[in-house]
């Protein structure tokens, strides 16, 4: 079933080409996008089953056996990330299609929206599947380039301003990443992750530490880890709602994914665990304090986004199985809940004409369905049980106590405090936007059902996660076990000792 592995990248790219060529026919474009992302979703579901039953699926692209060629690896972690991102991408796409139909396509450069969105999804999938460090960089570039375009869509002054912060910080992180790749290649002579996992152990530990630091910095910027996080709340909120939603859901999590990979596959000696844990604690607290200070829903959500990245980093820094498993669970949770909330923020903006909490009000009275749609994911974000946020958090806290170091205990306490302040922030928003009387009459009209649906699906996922919490945790536990053991990954790639499946070396042998 390895033929499934490249599809989440190839299908959206083919579709993107097609969609761009069809740029005069928006309906066809929409159909192409929906079809492509549905295929990706189906493939992701397939990959979940295949990886769970048969182990990591490896493709040596073009038959070039690793480490010469690029290996694509779908293991349990990648498959889960793919599945969640496919769901989110599809929901947001449907939401934006509905928005396009509701608003009419005038006034927005929609012709390039679909191709760019598809390229973005290909980039995200590529980052999750790549088994090659440079190709991981390419995956990042794809999704970043697409995100630059999506973020500045429409080109208002505000968006350009926000976009310039985002673009420049992203480029800086890419440069750091690229330098790290160069250095890693210089030190080990390979780019294949599986081979790196072996070769990095052979080099001088001091050099390894520096390499780890450099790579981590690149990823930490993308994941918005404090003190490298300030760019995020300044750049996300200005974009159109679906764009912010998908960014908030996915892009930072690609960074988190990369950190998980590097900490479990490449740099396994735990040298930076303490640093990471400090970063986690500070990210949580500084982020949520920022959220408390906001009076705009989108900005508030952006700050909670940063803050909760801290939870995932905490799980990674614990470096035990429970911690990793919960971090993975939390990533899945956080992707869905943040996307849902930003989509709802978009609906609030339509209904109330603004996302400023000072100007909003009375939504509880006039838009009860919207109220439910906000309340459920907001409570989920705040970790109110029995929804997914709570389950992820409990796992993380258990893992922290399992480790039991003073810093881990302090971070557990910090996590609980963050949870409380998150609740405070969202309740404050709820009080103002939904309960308090609006200072002025709300200008918006009612929300189209078709936009409601995708947001509701994502909000409901948080509840669904609770129902299937048992199997899901079983899965993430297995994923974490694989990660910690490393052998499933490495052995699947380098099947012949130092070479992977593929014909290129055999061909060489025949002729030589």
């Amino acid at each position: 079933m390895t033929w499934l592995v490249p599809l989440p990248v190839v299908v959206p790219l083919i579709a993107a080409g097609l969609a761009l060529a069809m740029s005069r026919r928006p309906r066809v474009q929409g159909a192409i996008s929906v079809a492509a992302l549905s295929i990706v979703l189906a493939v992701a579901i397939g990959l979940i089953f295949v990886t769970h039953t048969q182990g990591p699926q490896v493709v040596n692209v073009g038959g070039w056996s690793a480490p010469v060629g690029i290996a694509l690896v779908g293991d349990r972690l990648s498959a889960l990330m793919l599945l969640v991102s496919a769901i989110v991408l599809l929901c947001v796409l449907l939401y934006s299609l509905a928005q396009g139909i509701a608003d009419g396509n005038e006034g927005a450069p929609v012709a390039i929206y679909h191709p760019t969105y598809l390229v973005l999804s290909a980039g995200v999938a590529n980052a999750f599947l790549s088994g090659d460090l440079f190709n991981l960089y390419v995956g990042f570039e794809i999704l970043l380039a697409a995100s630059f375009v999506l973020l500045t869509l429409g080109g208002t002054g505000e968006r350009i301003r926000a976009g310039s912060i985002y673009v420049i910080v992203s480029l800086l992180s890419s440069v750091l990443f690229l330098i790290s790749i160069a250095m890693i290649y210089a030190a080990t002579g390979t780019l294949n992750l599986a081979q790196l996992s072996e070769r990095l152990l052979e080099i001088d530990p001091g050099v390894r530490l520096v390499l780890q630091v450099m790579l981590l910095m690149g990823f930490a910027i993308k994941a918005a880890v404090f003190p490298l996080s300030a760019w995020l709340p300044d750049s996300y909120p200005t974009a159109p709602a679906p764009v912010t939603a998908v960014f908030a859901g996915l892009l930072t999590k690609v960074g988190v994914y990369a950190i998980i990979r590097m900490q479990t596959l490449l740099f396994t000696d735990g040298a930076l665990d303490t640093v990471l844990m400090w970063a986690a604690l500070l990210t949580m607290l500084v982020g949520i304090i920022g959220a408390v200070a906001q009076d705009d829903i989108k900005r508030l959500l952006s700050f909670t986004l940063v803050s909760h990245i801290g939870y995932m980093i905490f799980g990674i820094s614990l470096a035990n199985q429970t911690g990793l498993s919960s971090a993975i669970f939390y990533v899945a949770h956080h992707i869905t809940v943040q996307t849902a909330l930003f989509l709802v923020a978009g609906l609030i903006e339509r209904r109330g004409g603004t996302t400023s909490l000072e100007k909003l009000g009375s939504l509880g009275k006039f838009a009860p369905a919207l109220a439910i749609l906000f309340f459920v994911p907001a409570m989920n974000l705040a970790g109110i049980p029995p929804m997914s946020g709570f389950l992820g958090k409990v796992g993380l806290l258990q893992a922290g106590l399992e480790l039991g170091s003073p810093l881990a205990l302090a971070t557990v306490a910090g996590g609980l405090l963050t949870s409380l302040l998150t609740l405070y922030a969202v309740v404050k928003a709820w009080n103002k936007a939904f309960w308090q009387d609006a200072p002025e009459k709300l200008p918006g009209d009612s929300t189209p059902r078709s936009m409601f649906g995708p947001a509701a699906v994502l909000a409901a996922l948080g509840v669904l996660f609770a129902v299937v919490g048992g199997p899901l945790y079983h899965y993430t536990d297995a994923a974490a076990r694989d990660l910690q053991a490393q052998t499933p990954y490495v052995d699947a790639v380098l099947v012949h000792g130092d070479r992977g499946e593929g014909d290129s070396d055999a061909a060489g042998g025949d002729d030589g």
Partner: protein
Amino acid sequence: MLQLLALHLLAAVAAPAIMRRFGRKGFLPLALVPGSAAVWAVVNTGAVVDGRGPTLDVSWIPALDMSLSFRLDVLSWLMVILVGGVGAIVLGYCAWYFASGAKFLGRFAGVFVAFAGAMLGLVTTDNTLVLYVFWELTTVFSYLLIGHYFDRKGARRAAMQAIIVTTLGGLAMLFGFLILGEAEGGSYTISELIAAPPAGGGLVTAAIVLVLVGAISKSALVPFHFWLPGAMAAPTPVSAYLHAAAMVKAGVYLVARFAPGFAETPVWQWMILLTGGATMILGGYRALRQHDLKLLLAFGTVSQLGFLILLVGQADRAVALAGLALIGAHAMFKAALFLTVGVIDAAAGTRDLRQLSGLAKHLPWATVPGVLAAFSMVGLPPFAGYVGKEAALEALVHLDDPMSVAVLVVVVIGSILTFAYGMRFLWGAFARKKGVPDTSVDKEATGLYVAPNVLAFAGLFAGLFPVAGETLLAPYADTYPQGEPGHLTLWGGFGIPLLLTGVIIVAGLLLMLGRTAIERAQELVSVGPDADRTYRGTMRRLDSISVAVTSITQRGSLPVYLGLILLTTVVMIWTSAYAGGLRIGALKPWDYPVQAGVAVVIAVAAFLTARARRRLKAVVLLGITGYGVVLLFALQGAPDLALTQALVETITLVVFILVLRRLPAYFSNRPLKASRWWRAILATIVGVTVTFVALVIPNARVTDTIAELFPEEAYNFGYGRNIVNVTLVDIRAWDTMGEISVLLVAATGVASLVFLRARAGRVERIRDHDMDRGSVWASDSPGDDALVRRSRTQPVRSTRNRRWISAGVALAPHRRSVIFEVATRLIFHTMLVFAVYLLFAGHNSPGGGFVAGLVAGIALTVRYLAGGRYELGEAAPVLPGLLLGSGLFLSAGAGAVPLAFGGVVLQSAVIDFHLGYLGDVHLVTTLFFDIGVFLVVVGLMLDILRSLGAEVDRQGEAEGRAAPDVAHDSPRSTADDAQPLEDALAGGGPR
């Protein structure tokens, strides 16, 4: 058990529909739902008392030790009956309490039933984490219920206060549970924890404290007592149920639940004594001065909760039995009292005891339950409250350790206060007062009176049969660690307890008589810090601190962010380099000395770039660094890379210059002056760091690079001699496929920004050009050089030979250059042919789709520069989107084709065939991939020329602006420099 919970959930979801269908009478069918839970408990009474109550264990999330385990023991049984029974009665009361046209009843009913369900789960589960789940659910539902009248500011504030305070406690409790679960010998199963508490140690002690914090916050004990009176903003049935009978009892339940295992711990005992005791006294004291009957009861509830926790938190069996009895008694009398106040409120329109008078006469059926319940509360025989309190006194009197004596003293003082405010309640609600006219009352429906009477009489009956209570409750009290089993009785004989009761009654009456003086005194003297004010102050401080902190971390300034990122990186790298003991090893300065020369040129150019104030200068200097890299590639023997880099640099330069036409000539230096030196220092440090790293790390390699494998495999498996090209289109074709999608996105993105709204759907051709509207850039004043050319009035097409390029006529005459046009005519097609050659030759010689695309792109650039935007349309009469899209489609599609034949993605094949005289053809299928790359690159170039070139021209023209001319504007034009990017660089204030 699960069925009951599911029933609650279903009913909650269906409630809005039910309420819509039946109006307020819909509460009656809904009341059956919590009622069914009580019935279930009653049916199981026998089994429960025998210790064979139903249990259930369903696996939920084994990884987290969360299982849906439930069991009905005596304590749970008691709580289920209270939660279910009182819940049903209060819901029934709602059917008459709300006005028939009241709004939002569906939501109210749904949340209410859901709350009852959560409460049911809370008191029956045997898993700490699941207990926390239900615990938090009750918090959230109570938040929604307190905020039922959400258009009132007080309700919103109170709801928020309640959820924050109780969640604070809840999270503390969760922390405690987690410690208890993860500790050595710990467990997430309550019964296991009680049976074998984890061995002591600081953490377990902390866990006990944390769990108790949860309990006391939920039960509104000091110092968290303030949220409960605030919560009285809720509709009265909510107050009766949540804030008297059910939710606030969760804390009492938790203490009772854990006491058998932990009550002997000193920290437990002290916390119970201090918080419970302080609460009992403070609540009673504050109740004495309230004028609102509901608030009076609220403070009374606070006091009683302190009392209950004080009792069930003791280690002694007899005290515990008294506590359990009082839990039941309290639920009945307090709910009855609240519901009575609800009746009074509805009938008289006020709850202020200063305005109420003579209700005893006018509202007899409110007076009866009021009196009965109040008597039970103050502990008069033969009510349930009396039985419990007597048992408590009796048990405490027989204990002589100092802790128990302290408890006894507190209980007596508290009871005196209770007696006083109980009497004050009766007087305030029902008595005829001097100087106050009889309150006029509306007639209320009979149904409204049912609930308080049922509850009040239940309290009477329970008191009349104390032995039944003892039999039922004793099994749980006996699980407590110390003391003799206690007894419940109406008559305990003469002794100290009876004496104390007498003291309580007399002192209470005295306090009641002196009520006016006490009220006045309380207004004058404030006792201790006002917890409510402290809470509000804390929250305000939290808000202002968060604003202060965020204004530091979130400057809104890009330079600050970049500086922070770079600084962090540098510090991290040097720290780790120091920790790892990194040293610069053996160095080889160069392969060829000329490399050093190139490096110096690059470095100088880079330095000057950073210093340049003129945009054009910066761009050109930047170009020099790029061409320097070209040289380095060439010197290393990499002609492909050198070629590609050279073309990229050229095109970058062209693009930059196209952009610069619309930008001021000079960088704005206004906002950056102050920090210039800091930035220079940081930049230097970063440069030094990266250099250091680059000098150290390559020496660490101990293995061969994979590059060693490339030459052989590229030829044998990739069928090409040009390794770079084979790498690009075959070995790492996956990267290339990704990168061309980046190109596609970048091209369309730039275009979308320039074209903004309507991405022009058509190509501007010369035939569309309306010569009468003037030619391109004609608005310029012609310079001297224009005079030598023909004027635009001359017929353009007169001489065919003069027409070197297709659309040159559209350009203003003084913009044209014959030499350029001729040159263009000569080289354009040659370049295209060369591009095609590069495309096909690439596999074995330098070239390839990427380079070919760049060459073709430069050819187009030349056409555009020579002839303006119509010329571009003539040169490439296609939309770039089509090129880009089909290119990506071709490349990615070609990659996917092998999948259909059972191959691997992007697998290549070689096709050899004869073409007779033309020779042999050696075709590698990667060519199709490379053609896709070519198309994308050409599309990119075309898109850039169309947007940054042609469209910018058109916009400039439409705005009537002169042709932007980079070379000639003055330094002074920076004054109106207001590009958004510059604003971002300048940095906003704290946001």
